Protein backbone atom coordinates (compact mmCIF):
# COMPACT_ATOMS: atom_id res chain seq x y z
CA UNK A 1 0.00 0.00 0.00
CA UNK A 2 2.74 2.45 0.95
CA UNK A 3 4.53 1.58 -2.28
CA UNK A 4 1.49 2.23 -4.47
CA UNK A 5 0.80 5.42 -2.48
CA UNK A 6 4.33 6.52 -3.24
CA UNK A 7 3.90 5.74 -6.93
CA UNK A 8 0.62 7.66 -6.93
CA UNK A 9 2.32 10.63 -5.30
CA UNK A 10 5.18 10.59 -7.80
CA UNK A 11 2.66 10.46 -10.64
CA UNK A 12 0.84 13.42 -9.17
CA UNK A 13 4.10 15.39 -8.85
CA UNK A 14 4.96 14.58 -12.46
CA UNK A 15 1.48 15.46 -13.68
CA UNK A 16 1.91 19.05 -12.45
CA UNK A 17 5.61 19.20 -13.30
CA UNK A 18 5.99 22.99 -13.42
CA UNK A 19 3.92 23.64 -10.33
CA UNK A 20 5.72 20.89 -8.44
CA UNK A 21 9.06 22.33 -9.42
CA UNK A 22 8.10 25.83 -8.30
CA UNK A 23 6.83 24.42 -5.02
CA UNK A 24 10.05 22.53 -4.51
CA UNK A 25 12.05 25.65 -5.28
CA UNK A 26 11.42 27.03 -1.80
CA UNK A 27 12.80 23.93 -0.11
CA UNK A 28 15.54 23.66 -2.67
CA UNK A 29 16.80 27.20 -2.02
CA UNK A 30 16.49 26.70 1.73
CA UNK A 31 18.43 23.45 1.80
CA UNK A 32 20.90 24.78 -0.76
CA UNK A 33 21.54 27.91 1.29
CA UNK A 34 22.07 25.98 4.51
CA UNK A 35 24.49 23.59 2.85
CA UNK A 36 26.36 26.32 1.02
CA UNK A 37 26.68 28.45 4.16
CA UNK A 38 27.86 25.61 6.33
CA UNK A 39 30.25 24.18 3.73
CA UNK A 40 31.81 27.54 2.92
CA UNK A 41 31.99 28.33 6.63
CA UNK A 42 33.75 25.08 7.43
CA UNK A 43 36.18 25.75 4.60
CA UNK A 44 36.91 29.21 6.01
CA UNK A 45 37.43 27.81 9.51
CA UNK A 46 39.81 25.24 8.14
CA UNK A 47 41.68 27.88 6.16
CA UNK A 48 42.12 30.05 9.25
CA UNK A 49 43.40 27.07 11.17
CA UNK A 50 45.82 26.14 8.37
CA UNK A 51 47.08 29.71 7.99
CA UNK A 52 47.72 30.15 11.68
CA UNK A 53 49.48 26.85 12.01
CA UNK A 54 51.56 27.81 8.95
CA UNK A 55 52.83 30.69 11.07
CA UNK A 56 53.96 28.01 13.43
CA UNK A 57 52.11 26.74 16.42
CA UNK A 58 55.35 27.05 18.32
CA UNK A 59 55.25 30.81 18.06
CA UNK A 60 54.73 33.19 20.98
CA UNK A 61 53.94 36.83 20.31
CA UNK A 62 54.96 39.06 23.19
CA UNK A 63 53.70 42.62 23.13
CA UNK A 64 53.65 45.45 25.62
CA UNK A 65 50.31 46.48 27.11
CA UNK A 66 47.66 44.49 28.95
CA UNK A 67 45.50 42.06 27.07
CA UNK A 68 42.31 43.38 28.55
CA UNK A 69 40.70 46.07 26.49
CA UNK A 70 38.81 48.95 27.98
CA UNK A 71 39.24 52.06 30.10
CA UNK A 72 41.41 50.39 32.76
CA UNK A 73 44.02 49.55 30.15
CA UNK A 74 47.53 50.13 31.45
CA UNK A 75 49.88 52.22 29.30
CA UNK A 76 51.97 50.09 27.00
CA UNK A 77 55.46 50.42 28.44
CA UNK A 78 57.83 49.18 25.74
CA UNK A 79 60.41 46.45 26.32
CA UNK A 80 64.08 47.17 26.62
CA UNK A 81 67.09 45.44 25.11
CA UNK A 82 67.95 44.04 28.57
CA UNK A 83 64.56 42.29 28.73
CA UNK A 84 65.31 40.47 25.50
CA UNK A 85 68.77 39.53 26.65
CA UNK A 86 67.36 38.22 29.94
CA UNK A 87 64.81 36.06 28.15
CA UNK A 88 67.51 34.68 25.86
CA UNK A 89 69.83 33.98 28.78
CA UNK A 90 67.47 32.57 31.36
CA UNK A 91 64.91 30.58 29.42
CA UNK A 92 65.63 27.34 27.63
CA UNK A 93 63.95 25.81 24.62
CA UNK A 94 64.09 28.94 22.49
CA UNK A 95 64.86 28.50 18.81
CA UNK A 96 64.58 32.09 17.72
CA UNK A 97 63.90 35.41 19.40
CA UNK A 98 63.03 38.41 17.23
CA UNK A 99 62.53 41.79 18.87
CA UNK A 100 60.87 44.37 16.62
CA UNK A 101 59.69 47.92 16.63
CA UNK A 102 57.41 49.32 13.98
CA UNK A 103 55.66 52.37 12.72
CA UNK A 104 53.42 53.35 9.88
CA UNK A 105 54.83 55.96 7.57
CA UNK A 106 55.14 56.98 3.97
CA UNK A 107 57.96 55.55 1.88
CA UNK A 108 59.19 57.83 -0.85
CA UNK A 109 61.10 56.96 -4.01
CA UNK A 110 61.65 59.78 -6.50
CA UNK A 111 58.21 61.24 -7.09
CA UNK A 112 56.45 58.08 -5.95
CA UNK A 113 55.26 57.55 -2.42
CA UNK A 114 53.45 54.73 -0.64
CA UNK A 115 52.12 54.49 2.92
CA UNK A 116 53.40 51.32 4.51
CA UNK A 117 54.63 49.76 7.69
CA UNK A 118 58.30 49.99 8.59
CA UNK A 119 59.54 47.21 10.81
CA UNK A 120 62.85 47.35 12.61
CA UNK A 121 64.05 43.76 12.72
CA UNK A 122 67.05 41.52 13.15
CA UNK A 123 68.17 38.38 11.38
CA UNK A 124 65.98 36.03 13.49
CA UNK A 125 62.85 37.88 12.36
CA UNK A 126 63.07 36.36 8.85
CA UNK A 127 63.03 32.80 10.18
CA UNK A 128 60.49 33.34 12.88
CA UNK A 129 57.95 35.05 10.60
CA UNK A 130 58.76 32.91 7.60
CA UNK A 131 59.94 35.72 5.31
CA UNK A 132 62.22 34.67 2.48
CA UNK A 133 64.46 36.78 0.27
CA UNK A 134 63.47 36.75 -3.39
CA UNK A 135 66.03 39.16 -4.75
CA UNK A 136 69.22 40.62 -3.29
CA UNK A 137 70.13 39.78 0.28
CA UNK A 138 69.07 40.23 3.86
CA UNK A 139 70.89 42.32 6.52
CA UNK A 140 74.53 41.57 7.25
CA UNK A 141 75.90 41.19 10.78
CA UNK A 142 77.62 44.58 10.56
CA UNK A 143 74.52 46.35 9.30
CA UNK A 144 72.56 44.99 12.25
CA UNK A 145 75.08 45.92 14.89
CA UNK A 146 75.95 49.26 13.34
CA UNK A 147 72.39 50.19 12.46
CA UNK A 148 73.15 50.96 8.82
CA UNK A 149 70.17 52.47 6.94
CA UNK A 150 69.50 49.63 4.49
CA UNK A 151 66.14 48.09 3.76
CA UNK A 152 64.37 45.05 2.33
CA UNK A 153 61.06 45.73 0.57
CA UNK A 154 57.90 43.68 0.58
CA UNK A 155 56.42 42.90 -2.82
CA UNK A 156 53.54 45.37 -2.50
CA UNK A 157 55.84 48.25 -1.62
CA UNK A 158 58.22 47.38 -4.41
CA UNK A 159 55.45 47.23 -7.01
CA UNK A 160 53.96 50.51 -5.94
CA UNK A 161 57.20 52.44 -5.75
CA UNK A 162 59.27 50.88 -8.49
CA UNK A 163 56.89 49.23 -10.93
CA UNK A 164 59.09 47.34 -13.37
CA UNK A 165 62.30 49.16 -12.40
CA UNK A 166 64.81 46.96 -10.52
CA UNK A 167 64.91 48.43 -6.98
CA UNK A 168 68.28 47.10 -5.84
CA UNK A 169 70.85 49.80 -5.18
CA UNK A 170 68.23 52.55 -5.26
CA UNK A 171 67.54 54.75 -2.27
CA UNK A 172 64.13 55.25 -0.67
CA UNK A 173 63.32 57.85 1.95
CA UNK A 174 61.64 56.76 5.21
CA UNK A 175 60.77 59.83 7.29
CA UNK A 176 64.03 61.82 6.97
CA UNK A 177 66.24 58.80 6.48
CA UNK A 178 67.59 57.75 3.13
CA UNK A 179 67.78 53.97 2.92
CA UNK A 180 69.57 51.73 0.47
CA UNK A 181 67.43 48.94 -0.96
CA UNK A 182 69.36 45.68 -0.61
CA UNK A 183 66.65 43.06 -1.16
CA UNK A 184 63.08 42.15 -1.92
CA UNK A 185 60.96 39.68 0.07
CA UNK A 186 59.22 36.71 -1.51
CA UNK A 187 55.45 37.30 -1.45
CA UNK A 188 53.50 35.82 1.50
CA UNK A 189 50.01 36.98 0.60
CA UNK A 190 47.09 37.70 2.90
CA UNK A 191 47.49 37.12 6.61
CA UNK A 192 45.00 34.86 8.35
CA UNK A 193 43.49 37.82 10.13
CA UNK A 194 43.45 39.91 6.97
CA UNK A 195 46.05 42.46 6.01
CA UNK A 196 48.69 42.31 3.35
CA UNK A 197 51.84 40.73 4.70
CA UNK A 198 53.77 42.01 1.70
CA UNK A 199 53.03 45.65 2.44
CA UNK A 200 56.10 46.05 4.64
CA UNK A 201 59.60 47.52 4.68
CA UNK A 202 62.22 45.89 6.90
CA UNK A 203 65.22 47.79 8.21
CA UNK A 204 67.73 46.83 10.92
CA UNK A 205 66.20 47.31 14.39
CA UNK A 206 69.05 49.52 15.54
CA UNK A 207 68.69 51.78 12.51
CA UNK A 208 64.94 51.98 13.18
CA UNK A 209 65.45 52.91 16.84
CA UNK A 210 68.19 55.43 16.27
CA UNK A 211 67.13 57.11 13.05
CA UNK A 212 63.38 56.72 12.76
CA UNK A 213 61.95 56.33 16.28
CA UNK A 214 64.69 58.20 18.12
CA UNK A 215 64.58 55.91 21.16
CA UNK A 216 65.57 52.40 22.24
CA UNK A 217 62.10 50.96 22.62
CA UNK A 218 61.23 47.47 21.55
CA UNK A 219 57.63 46.65 20.68
CA UNK A 220 56.44 43.23 19.69
CA UNK A 221 58.81 40.33 20.27
CA UNK A 222 58.38 37.08 18.39
CA UNK A 223 59.61 33.96 20.11
CA UNK A 224 59.88 30.61 18.41
CA UNK A 225 60.30 27.60 20.66
CA UNK A 226 62.46 24.65 19.77
CA UNK A 227 60.81 21.58 18.29
CA UNK A 228 59.98 19.32 21.20
CA UNK A 229 59.84 22.15 23.73
CA UNK A 230 56.47 22.74 25.31
CA UNK A 231 55.24 26.10 24.08
CA UNK A 232 52.95 26.56 27.07
CA UNK A 233 55.85 25.95 29.49
CA UNK A 234 58.04 28.46 27.70
CA UNK A 235 55.13 30.91 27.72
CA UNK A 236 54.76 30.54 31.52
CA UNK A 237 58.48 31.11 32.07
CA UNK A 238 58.50 34.17 29.84
CA UNK A 239 55.52 35.59 31.71
CA UNK A 240 57.18 35.01 35.09
CA UNK A 241 60.42 36.58 34.00
CA UNK A 242 58.81 39.62 32.43
CA UNK A 243 56.56 40.14 35.44
CA UNK A 244 59.60 40.17 37.62
CA UNK A 245 61.61 42.45 35.36
CA UNK A 246 58.73 44.87 34.84
CA UNK A 247 57.85 44.78 38.55
CA UNK A 248 54.27 43.73 38.17
CA UNK A 249 52.76 43.44 41.67
CA UNK A 250 51.39 40.00 42.59
CA UNK A 251 47.70 39.98 41.74
CA UNK A 252 47.98 42.97 39.42
CA UNK A 253 47.18 42.77 35.73
CA UNK A 254 50.21 42.12 33.53
CA UNK A 255 51.32 45.18 31.57
CA UNK A 256 52.31 42.97 28.67
CA UNK A 257 50.68 40.18 26.69
CA UNK A 258 52.03 36.83 25.57
CA UNK A 259 49.91 35.23 22.92
CA UNK A 260 50.24 31.67 21.84
CA UNK A 261 49.43 31.18 18.13
CA UNK A 262 47.54 28.04 19.07
CA UNK A 263 45.17 30.10 21.19
CA UNK A 264 44.77 32.64 18.45
CA UNK A 265 43.96 29.87 16.04
CA UNK A 266 41.31 28.53 18.37
CA UNK A 267 39.78 31.92 19.01
CA UNK A 268 39.62 32.70 15.34
CA UNK A 269 38.17 29.38 14.32
CA UNK A 270 35.56 29.67 17.03
CA UNK A 271 34.63 33.06 15.61
CA UNK A 272 34.26 31.66 12.11
CA UNK A 273 32.28 28.68 13.34
CA UNK A 274 29.81 30.81 15.23
CA UNK A 275 29.47 32.96 12.14
CA UNK A 276 28.82 29.78 10.14
CA UNK A 277 26.15 28.77 12.63
CA UNK A 278 24.53 32.18 12.42
CA UNK A 279 24.42 32.20 8.61
CA UNK A 280 23.22 28.60 8.56
CA UNK A 281 20.45 29.56 10.97
CA UNK A 282 19.35 32.44 8.81
CA UNK A 283 19.35 30.14 5.80
CA UNK A 284 17.23 27.66 7.76
CA UNK A 285 14.49 30.28 8.01
CA UNK A 286 14.10 30.07 4.25
CA UNK A 287 13.46 26.35 4.69
CA UNK A 288 10.52 27.29 6.85
CA UNK A 289 9.27 29.60 4.12
CA UNK A 290 9.66 26.72 1.67
CA UNK A 291 7.52 24.57 3.96
CA UNK A 292 4.79 27.18 3.98
CA UNK A 293 4.94 27.19 0.18
CA UNK A 294 4.34 23.45 0.18
CA UNK A 295 1.41 23.82 2.54
CA UNK A 296 -0.08 26.51 0.34
CA UNK A 297 0.15 24.43 -2.83
CA UNK A 298 -1.14 21.31 -1.10
CA UNK A 299 -4.18 23.25 0.14
CA UNK A 300 -4.83 24.44 -3.40
CA UNK A 301 -4.36 20.92 -4.66
CA UNK A 302 -6.86 19.48 -2.14
CA UNK A 303 -9.45 22.05 -3.17
CA UNK A 304 -8.85 21.37 -6.84
CA UNK A 305 -9.09 17.65 -6.33
CA UNK A 306 -12.14 17.67 -4.07
CA UNK A 307 -14.13 15.55 -6.54
CA UNK A 308 -11.25 13.15 -6.84
CA UNK A 309 -11.20 12.78 -3.06
CA UNK A 310 -14.97 12.26 -3.11
CA UNK A 311 -14.59 9.57 -5.75
CA UNK A 312 -11.86 7.82 -3.81
CA UNK A 313 -13.93 7.87 -0.63
CA UNK A 314 -16.98 6.53 -2.50
CA UNK A 315 -14.91 3.75 -4.05
CA UNK A 316 -13.94 2.65 -0.56
CA UNK A 317 -10.81 4.56 0.47
CA UNK A 318 -10.53 5.06 4.22
CA UNK A 319 -10.07 8.60 5.53
CA UNK A 320 -6.66 7.51 6.81
CA UNK A 321 -5.68 6.33 3.33
CA UNK A 322 -6.63 9.69 1.82
CA UNK A 323 -4.65 11.42 4.59
CA UNK A 324 -1.64 9.24 3.86
CA UNK A 325 -1.87 9.91 0.14
CA UNK A 326 -1.74 13.69 0.49
CA UNK A 327 0.86 13.51 3.23
CA UNK A 328 3.10 11.34 1.08
CA UNK A 329 2.67 13.79 -1.78
CA UNK A 330 3.84 16.67 0.41
CA UNK A 331 6.77 14.66 1.71
CA UNK A 332 7.76 13.61 -1.82
CA UNK A 333 7.70 17.26 -2.90
CA UNK A 334 9.77 18.30 0.09
CA UNK A 335 12.28 15.49 -0.29
CA UNK A 336 12.75 16.05 -4.01
CA UNK A 337 13.28 19.70 -3.16
CA UNK A 338 15.75 18.60 -0.51
CA UNK A 339 17.71 16.45 -2.95
CA UNK A 340 17.85 19.24 -5.54
CA UNK A 341 18.82 21.63 -2.76
CA UNK A 342 21.70 19.41 -1.67
CA UNK A 343 23.03 19.26 -5.23
CA UNK A 344 22.50 23.00 -5.63
CA UNK A 345 24.15 23.80 -2.30
CA UNK A 346 27.14 21.56 -2.97
CA UNK A 347 27.55 23.08 -6.43
CA UNK A 348 27.37 26.60 -5.06
CA UNK A 349 29.81 25.94 -2.26
CA UNK A 350 32.19 24.13 -4.59
CA UNK A 351 32.26 27.16 -6.88
CA UNK A 352 32.58 29.55 -3.94
CA UNK A 353 35.38 27.67 -2.22
CA UNK A 354 37.22 27.45 -5.55
CA UNK A 355 36.79 31.18 -6.04
CA UNK A 356 37.93 32.05 -2.50
CA UNK A 357 40.65 29.37 -2.50
CA UNK A 358 39.17 27.74 0.57
CA UNK A 359 39.25 24.01 1.19
CA UNK A 360 36.02 22.28 0.02
CA UNK A 361 34.90 20.25 3.02
CA UNK A 362 31.53 18.50 2.80
CA UNK A 363 30.14 17.52 6.16
CA UNK A 364 27.97 14.40 5.71
CA UNK A 365 26.10 15.28 8.90
CA UNK A 366 24.90 18.55 7.44
CA UNK A 367 23.87 16.95 4.15
CA UNK A 368 21.97 14.20 5.92
CA UNK A 369 20.51 16.64 8.41
CA UNK A 370 19.26 18.95 5.67
CA UNK A 371 17.64 16.01 3.91
CA UNK A 372 15.96 14.78 7.08
CA UNK A 373 14.85 18.30 7.88
CA UNK A 374 13.23 18.73 4.46
CA UNK A 375 11.33 15.47 4.94
CA UNK A 376 10.20 16.74 8.33
CA UNK A 377 9.06 20.00 6.72
CA UNK A 378 6.98 17.92 4.30
CA UNK A 379 5.32 16.02 7.14
CA UNK A 380 4.66 19.11 9.25
CA UNK A 381 3.36 21.34 6.49
CA UNK A 382 1.66 18.53 4.58
CA UNK A 383 -0.38 17.38 7.55
CA UNK A 384 -2.91 20.19 7.62
CA UNK A 385 -3.89 19.95 3.92
CA UNK A 386 -3.93 16.14 4.12
CA UNK A 387 -6.23 16.25 7.12
CA UNK A 388 -8.47 18.66 5.27
CA UNK A 389 -8.74 16.16 2.41
CA UNK A 390 -9.36 13.22 4.73
CA UNK A 391 -12.16 15.04 6.54
CA UNK A 392 -14.11 15.85 3.39
CA UNK A 393 -17.67 14.59 3.34
CA UNK A 394 -17.86 12.27 0.31
CA UNK A 395 -21.36 13.41 -0.68
CA UNK A 396 -20.41 17.08 -0.72
CA UNK A 397 -17.03 16.35 -2.30
CA UNK A 398 -18.73 14.50 -5.18
CA UNK A 399 -21.02 17.44 -5.78
CA UNK A 400 -18.14 19.96 -5.70
CA UNK A 401 -17.72 21.93 -8.92
Amino acid at each position, binding site marked *: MIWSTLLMALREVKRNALRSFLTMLGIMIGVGAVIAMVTIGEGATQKVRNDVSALGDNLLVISPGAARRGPERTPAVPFERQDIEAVEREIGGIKGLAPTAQTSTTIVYGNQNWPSTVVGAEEAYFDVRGYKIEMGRSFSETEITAGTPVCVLGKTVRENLFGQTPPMGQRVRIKQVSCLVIGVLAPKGQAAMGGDQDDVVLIPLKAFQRRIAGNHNIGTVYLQTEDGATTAAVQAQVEDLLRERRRVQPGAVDDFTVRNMQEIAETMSSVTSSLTGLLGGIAAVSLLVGGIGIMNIMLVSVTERTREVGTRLA*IGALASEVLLQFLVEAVVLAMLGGILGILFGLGMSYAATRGLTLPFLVSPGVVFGAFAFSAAVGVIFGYLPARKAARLNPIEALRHE
Partner: protein
Amino acid sequence: MTNPAPAGANWPAVEFRKVEKVYGEGESEVRALDGVDMRIEAGEFVSIMGSSGSGKSTSMNVIGCLDVPTGGSYLFRGVDVCKLDQDQRALLRRHFIGFVFQGFNLLARTTALENVELPLIYRRVPAAERHRRALASLEAVGLANRAYHTSAKLSGGQQQRVAIARALVTDPSLLLADEPTGNLDSARKVEIMELLRSLNKERGITVVMVTHEPDMAEYGSRTIVFRDGRIISGMN
Protein backbone atom coordinates in the same frame (compact mmCIF):
# COMPACT_ATOMS: atom_id res chain seq x y z
CA MET B 1 -9.69 -7.37 5.08
CA THR B 2 -12.44 -9.15 6.90
CA ASN B 3 -15.73 -9.42 5.18
CA PRO B 4 -18.10 -7.19 7.12
CA ALA B 5 -21.30 -8.80 5.83
CA PRO B 6 -22.28 -12.45 6.14
CA ALA B 7 -21.91 -14.05 2.73
CA GLY B 8 -24.38 -16.45 1.17
CA ALA B 9 -27.27 -15.48 3.43
CA ASN B 10 -30.53 -14.95 1.71
CA TRP B 11 -30.96 -11.30 2.63
CA PRO B 12 -32.50 -8.67 0.41
CA ALA B 13 -29.83 -6.49 -1.15
CA VAL B 14 -31.34 -3.34 0.33
CA GLU B 15 -33.89 -3.04 3.10
CA PHE B 16 -35.17 0.29 4.51
CA ARG B 17 -37.19 0.11 7.72
CA LYS B 18 -38.93 3.37 8.53
CA VAL B 19 -35.86 5.27 7.35
CA GLU B 20 -35.84 8.96 8.21
CA LYS B 21 -33.33 11.59 7.20
CA VAL B 22 -33.87 14.96 8.78
CA TYR B 23 -31.70 18.00 8.15
CA GLY B 24 -31.74 21.01 10.45
CA GLU B 25 -33.84 21.54 13.53
CA GLY B 26 -37.02 23.28 14.60
CA GLU B 27 -38.56 25.55 12.00
CA SER B 28 -35.86 25.00 9.41
CA GLU B 29 -36.26 21.24 9.70
CA VAL B 30 -36.26 19.41 6.36
CA ARG B 31 -37.47 15.80 6.25
CA ALA B 32 -35.60 14.45 3.23
CA LEU B 33 -36.76 10.91 3.98
CA ASP B 34 -39.90 10.55 6.02
CA GLY B 35 -40.24 6.98 7.27
CA VAL B 36 -39.42 5.11 4.08
CA ASP B 37 -39.91 1.33 3.87
CA MET B 38 -38.21 -0.19 0.85
CA ARG B 39 -36.90 -3.59 -0.19
CA ILE B 40 -34.76 -4.39 -3.18
CA GLU B 41 -34.00 -8.05 -3.74
CA ALA B 42 -30.64 -9.32 -4.89
CA GLY B 43 -30.49 -9.49 -8.70
CA GLU B 44 -33.10 -6.78 -9.33
CA PHE B 45 -32.68 -3.79 -11.66
CA VAL B 46 -34.55 -0.96 -9.99
CA SER B 47 -35.03 2.59 -11.29
CA ILE B 48 -35.68 5.37 -8.83
CA MET B 49 -37.50 8.46 -10.03
CA GLY B 50 -38.80 11.63 -8.52
CA SER B 51 -38.49 15.37 -8.82
CA SER B 52 -35.60 17.16 -7.19
CA GLY B 53 -36.02 17.35 -3.44
CA SER B 54 -38.19 14.25 -3.42
CA GLY B 55 -35.64 12.27 -1.46
CA LYS B 56 -34.32 10.09 -4.26
CA SER B 57 -30.73 11.36 -4.00
CA THR B 58 -30.76 11.10 -0.22
CA SER B 59 -31.96 7.53 -0.46
CA MET B 60 -29.19 6.78 -2.96
CA ASN B 61 -26.62 8.18 -0.53
CA VAL B 62 -28.06 6.01 2.22
CA ILE B 63 -28.13 2.91 0.01
CA GLY B 64 -24.50 3.56 -0.96
CA CYS B 65 -23.51 3.83 2.72
CA LEU B 66 -22.24 7.36 2.10
CA ASP B 67 -24.79 8.73 4.52
CA VAL B 68 -26.59 7.32 7.55
CA PRO B 69 -30.29 7.79 8.35
CA THR B 70 -31.29 9.87 11.35
CA GLY B 71 -34.07 7.42 12.19
CA GLY B 72 -35.21 3.89 11.39
CA SER B 73 -32.74 1.35 10.12
CA TYR B 74 -31.07 0.39 6.89
CA LEU B 75 -30.00 -3.19 6.34
CA PHE B 76 -27.48 -3.84 3.60
CA ARG B 77 -27.33 -7.59 2.97
CA GLY B 78 -28.71 -7.99 6.47
CA VAL B 79 -26.11 -5.70 8.10
CA ASP B 80 -27.43 -2.71 10.04
CA VAL B 81 -25.44 0.11 8.47
CA CYS B 82 -26.46 2.61 11.18
CA LYS B 83 -24.32 0.65 13.65
CA LEU B 84 -21.16 0.90 11.55
CA ASP B 85 -18.57 3.65 11.84
CA GLN B 86 -17.19 5.62 8.94
CA ASP B 87 -14.33 3.24 8.20
CA GLN B 88 -16.55 0.15 8.35
CA ARG B 89 -18.93 1.77 5.88
CA ALA B 90 -15.96 2.55 3.63
CA LEU B 91 -15.03 -1.14 3.74
CA LEU B 92 -18.60 -2.12 2.83
CA ARG B 93 -18.38 0.16 -0.21
CA ARG B 94 -14.96 -1.17 -1.08
CA HIS B 95 -16.10 -4.78 -1.08
CA PHE B 96 -19.72 -4.75 -2.21
CA ILE B 97 -20.72 -1.56 -3.98
CA GLY B 98 -19.82 -0.05 -7.33
CA PHE B 99 -20.63 3.59 -8.09
CA VAL B 100 -21.42 5.22 -11.42
CA PHE B 101 -21.91 8.99 -11.35
CA GLN B 102 -23.60 11.44 -13.67
CA GLY B 103 -20.33 13.40 -14.04
CA PHE B 104 -18.23 10.19 -14.59
CA ASN B 105 -15.69 11.35 -11.96
CA LEU B 106 -12.66 9.86 -13.63
CA LEU B 107 -9.25 11.09 -12.49
CA ALA B 108 -8.00 13.73 -14.90
CA ARG B 109 -4.81 13.14 -16.89
CA THR B 110 -4.90 9.50 -15.92
CA THR B 111 -5.30 6.59 -18.33
CA ALA B 112 -8.50 4.58 -18.52
CA LEU B 113 -6.61 1.57 -17.22
CA GLU B 114 -5.28 3.40 -14.16
CA ASN B 115 -8.76 4.70 -13.41
CA VAL B 116 -10.15 1.18 -13.49
CA GLU B 117 -7.31 -0.11 -11.32
CA LEU B 118 -8.01 2.45 -8.59
CA PRO B 119 -10.52 0.43 -6.50
CA LEU B 120 -8.19 -2.57 -6.65
CA ILE B 121 -5.37 -0.49 -5.16
CA TYR B 122 -7.52 0.05 -2.08
CA ARG B 123 -8.19 -3.67 -2.02
CA ARG B 124 -4.43 -4.35 -1.94
CA VAL B 125 -4.55 -6.40 -5.15
CA PRO B 126 -1.00 -7.01 -6.44
CA ALA B 127 0.01 -4.94 -9.48
CA ALA B 128 0.06 -7.75 -12.04
CA GLU B 129 -3.36 -9.06 -11.10
CA ARG B 130 -4.69 -5.50 -10.91
CA HIS B 131 -3.57 -4.91 -14.45
CA ARG B 132 -5.14 -8.12 -15.70
CA ARG B 133 -8.47 -7.53 -13.99
CA ALA B 134 -8.67 -3.89 -15.08
CA LEU B 135 -8.04 -4.91 -18.69
CA ALA B 136 -10.72 -7.61 -18.44
CA SER B 137 -13.14 -5.07 -17.05
CA LEU B 138 -12.41 -2.61 -19.85
CA GLU B 139 -12.89 -5.48 -22.30
CA ALA B 140 -16.32 -6.13 -20.78
CA VAL B 141 -17.40 -2.55 -21.53
CA GLY B 142 -15.83 -2.72 -25.00
CA LEU B 143 -12.96 -0.33 -24.37
CA ALA B 144 -9.92 -2.61 -24.25
CA ASN B 145 -8.43 -0.69 -27.16
CA ARG B 146 -8.65 2.60 -25.24
CA ALA B 147 -6.90 1.34 -22.09
CA TYR B 148 -3.96 3.72 -22.41
CA HIS B 149 -5.91 6.80 -23.42
CA THR B 150 -6.23 9.49 -20.77
CA SER B 151 -9.77 10.27 -19.79
CA ALA B 152 -9.68 13.68 -21.49
CA LYS B 153 -9.14 11.95 -24.84
CA LEU B 154 -12.29 9.84 -24.50
CA SER B 155 -15.80 10.87 -25.49
CA GLY B 156 -18.52 11.24 -22.85
CA GLY B 157 -19.98 7.80 -23.63
CA GLN B 158 -16.54 6.22 -23.44
CA GLN B 159 -15.80 7.97 -20.16
CA GLN B 160 -19.00 6.63 -18.67
CA ARG B 161 -18.11 3.16 -19.85
CA VAL B 162 -14.71 3.51 -18.18
CA ALA B 163 -16.53 4.55 -15.02
CA ILE B 164 -18.73 1.44 -15.29
CA ALA B 165 -15.62 -0.69 -15.80
CA ARG B 166 -14.19 0.88 -12.64
CA ALA B 167 -17.36 -0.01 -10.74
CA LEU B 168 -17.31 -3.57 -12.13
CA VAL B 169 -13.69 -4.41 -11.54
CA THR B 170 -14.29 -5.38 -7.92
CA ASP B 171 -17.21 -7.68 -8.79
CA PRO B 172 -19.64 -5.73 -6.65
CA SER B 173 -22.95 -7.21 -5.56
CA LEU B 174 -24.64 -3.81 -5.91
CA LEU B 175 -24.14 -1.23 -8.66
CA LEU B 176 -25.42 2.25 -7.87
CA ALA B 177 -25.88 4.55 -10.84
CA ASP B 178 -26.76 8.18 -10.16
CA GLU B 179 -28.21 9.61 -13.39
CA PRO B 180 -25.62 7.71 -15.45
CA THR B 181 -26.99 9.02 -18.76
CA GLY B 182 -27.57 12.61 -17.66
CA ASN B 183 -24.61 14.00 -19.57
CA LEU B 184 -24.92 11.91 -22.74
CA ASP B 185 -26.67 12.16 -26.10
CA SER B 186 -29.47 9.72 -26.90
CA ALA B 187 -27.42 7.16 -28.87
CA ARG B 188 -24.89 6.94 -25.97
CA LYS B 189 -27.72 6.72 -23.46
CA VAL B 190 -29.02 3.58 -25.12
CA GLU B 191 -25.51 2.07 -25.16
CA ILE B 192 -25.01 2.68 -21.47
CA MET B 193 -28.44 1.38 -20.53
CA GLU B 194 -27.91 -1.77 -22.61
CA LEU B 195 -24.61 -2.26 -20.85
CA LEU B 196 -26.20 -1.92 -17.40
CA ARG B 197 -28.99 -4.28 -18.37
CA SER B 198 -26.59 -6.92 -19.62
CA LEU B 199 -24.50 -6.67 -16.46
CA ASN B 200 -27.66 -7.20 -14.44
CA LYS B 201 -28.80 -10.15 -16.56
CA GLU B 202 -25.47 -11.88 -17.17
CA ARG B 203 -23.63 -11.28 -13.93
CA GLY B 204 -26.61 -11.05 -11.62
CA ILE B 205 -25.43 -7.72 -10.21
CA THR B 206 -28.17 -5.79 -8.41
CA VAL B 207 -28.53 -2.42 -10.15
CA VAL B 208 -30.15 0.61 -8.55
CA MET B 209 -30.35 3.63 -10.83
CA VAL B 210 -31.61 7.14 -10.19
CA THR B 211 -32.94 8.89 -13.27
CA HIS B 212 -35.44 11.58 -14.17
CA GLU B 213 -36.00 10.28 -17.69
CA PRO B 214 -38.96 7.86 -17.93
CA ASP B 215 -37.61 6.07 -21.01
CA MET B 216 -34.35 5.31 -19.16
CA ALA B 217 -36.29 4.06 -16.16
CA GLU B 218 -38.04 1.59 -18.55
CA TYR B 219 -34.83 -0.46 -18.67
CA GLY B 220 -35.32 -1.46 -15.06
CA SER B 221 -37.63 -4.23 -13.99
CA ARG B 222 -39.32 -1.91 -11.50
CA THR B 223 -39.53 1.84 -10.92
CA ILE B 224 -39.79 3.33 -7.45
CA VAL B 225 -41.12 6.89 -7.41
CA PHE B 226 -40.35 9.31 -4.56
CA ARG B 227 -42.23 12.44 -3.62
CA ASP B 228 -41.73 14.63 -0.55
CA GLY B 229 -39.57 12.08 1.21
CA ARG B 230 -41.95 9.19 0.72
CA ILE B 231 -42.40 6.44 -1.85
CA ILE B 232 -45.59 6.95 -3.83
CA SER B 233 -45.28 3.99 -6.16
CA GLY B 234 -43.11 1.01 -6.97
CA MET B 235 -43.36 -0.75 -3.61
CA ASN B 236 -46.13 -3.26 -3.22
